[in-house]
């Protein structure tokens, strides 16, 4: 029950994009069409969940016993980059159908700051491996929800008549701002 609450709070209350500002590049750059953002969110869910589990395991079994915790930034970024590469190769070999729908999005996530951000905040909050994995999964769900919502709103409001200076970037940022206000409401739920 505690873990379920953690996942819900990671997905909705502390939404990774709308209240922690992680992973904004793909949030803005891959949200023009719903189709593409579906593939992107699938890949993000897989990578963040796996990366949180593995980084947390490395932290608890290797870095912490050897008193090397100050190396966590360097170790995590390398682990994430190689994990993504490895995953892409593995999926390509083992399941071509899955690769078709999800694998093509994997390289995009190598430098996504949400992945490193979740791994680091798991360590900062002293979560054990299980809790980290659940937290990662919830966070990734929150990312998927936010990018799908933004993509749908952008598809609908693409041809709206907005003032000339607000066209493009300001328009999308204001949309994200209003979504962020809406997500503030979840704080009352838990």
């Amino acid at each position, binding site marked *: 029950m505690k873990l379920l609450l953690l996942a819900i709070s990671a997905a909705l209350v502390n939404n990774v994009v*709308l*209240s*922690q*500002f*992680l*992973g*904004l*590049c*793909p949030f*803005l*750059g*891959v949200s*023009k*069409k719903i*189709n*593409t953002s579906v*593939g*992107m969110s699938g890949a993000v869910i897989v990578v963040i969940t796996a990366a949180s589990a593995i980084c947390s395991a490395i932290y608890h079994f290797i870095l912490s016993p050897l008193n090397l915790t*100050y*190396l*966590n*930034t*360097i170790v995590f*970024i*390398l682990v994430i*980059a190689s994990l993504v590469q490895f995953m892409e190769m593995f999926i390509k070999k083992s399941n071509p159908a899955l690769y*078709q*729908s999800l694998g*093509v*999005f*994997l*390289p*995009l996530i*190598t*430098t*996504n*700051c949400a992945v*490193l*951000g979740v791994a*680091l*905040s798991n360590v*900062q909050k002293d979560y054990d491996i299980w809790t980290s994995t659940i937290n990662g999964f919830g966070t990734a769900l929150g990312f998927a929800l936010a990018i799908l919502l933004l993509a749908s709103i952008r598809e609908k409001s693409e041809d709206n008549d907005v*003032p*000339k*200076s*607000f*066209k*493009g*970037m*300001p*328009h*999308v*940022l*204001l949309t*994200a*701002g*209003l979504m*962020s*206000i809406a997500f*503030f409401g979840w704080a009352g739920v838990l």
Partner: protein
Amino acid sequence: MSKIFERLYNGIIKENPTLIMTLGMCPTLAVTTSLINGVGMGMSTLAVLVCSNFIISLLRKFIPDTVRIPAYIVIVASLVTIIQFVLQGFVPELYSSLGIYIPLIVVNCIILGRAEAYASKNKLIPSIFDGIGMGLGFTMALAILGFLRELIGNGTILSDGAKALVKIPEEIYTPASIMILAPGAFIVLAFVIAAMNKIKEKHGMKPAEVPDYTTKEGCAGCAAASLCAGAAPKAEEHVNSIKAKAESAAAKENVKVEAPKPETVQAKEPVPADTGKEDKE
């Protein structure tokens, strides 16, 4: 000498990483709750950027091309770890208020972008000044955002919690605290970019566009393009091809389904007509 000024101008004004290129959005929005935090984040990034440009420019002839990205990442990550210790030791308050965004400087695409686009191809001195210019441009954008958000959301300028340089009395202005919360970041940045668009329009420049990584041009504009090897346009192409296949398959099925319909309609229609005729007869 002219090269140095050109680099500084390029970083601060012409290709300002935040306001013109819209790169490095995560720290821009996350830490600009006050002027101090914005400047602190900007200066930390500046320090990392100058050092990484320095080291990468020095090593540009030694790093093999195939492993350059991992090499850059290791260099940047080590520098960030050093900056983290420096901040923790000398300005612990700033360190705790910037929190997780200090280690996340590693994945700030401005740094890897400059390493890839400039420092790996140019000599030492221009590379250092490229780092200073870009870092100052980033700091300036963060300072503008931090100043506006602190002023509107808290009614202060340069506040450190207890004291403030300027404080607007509450009788005159009630702070709109949403501006220092998460939604305020998006809203203030939207208005700053809209103002920039207005200025650019006067000078006949193109307004800021939303980066669209799913097109080839948009992907090339992203500093991290070399890292993902243009994955987004490929993914988009792929999605489109699946869609086109599904549509053509659906179209074929529709033809099959629709084809018998007119026949049945035609077959049915004459029957009542015939019967009608027969009745009349």
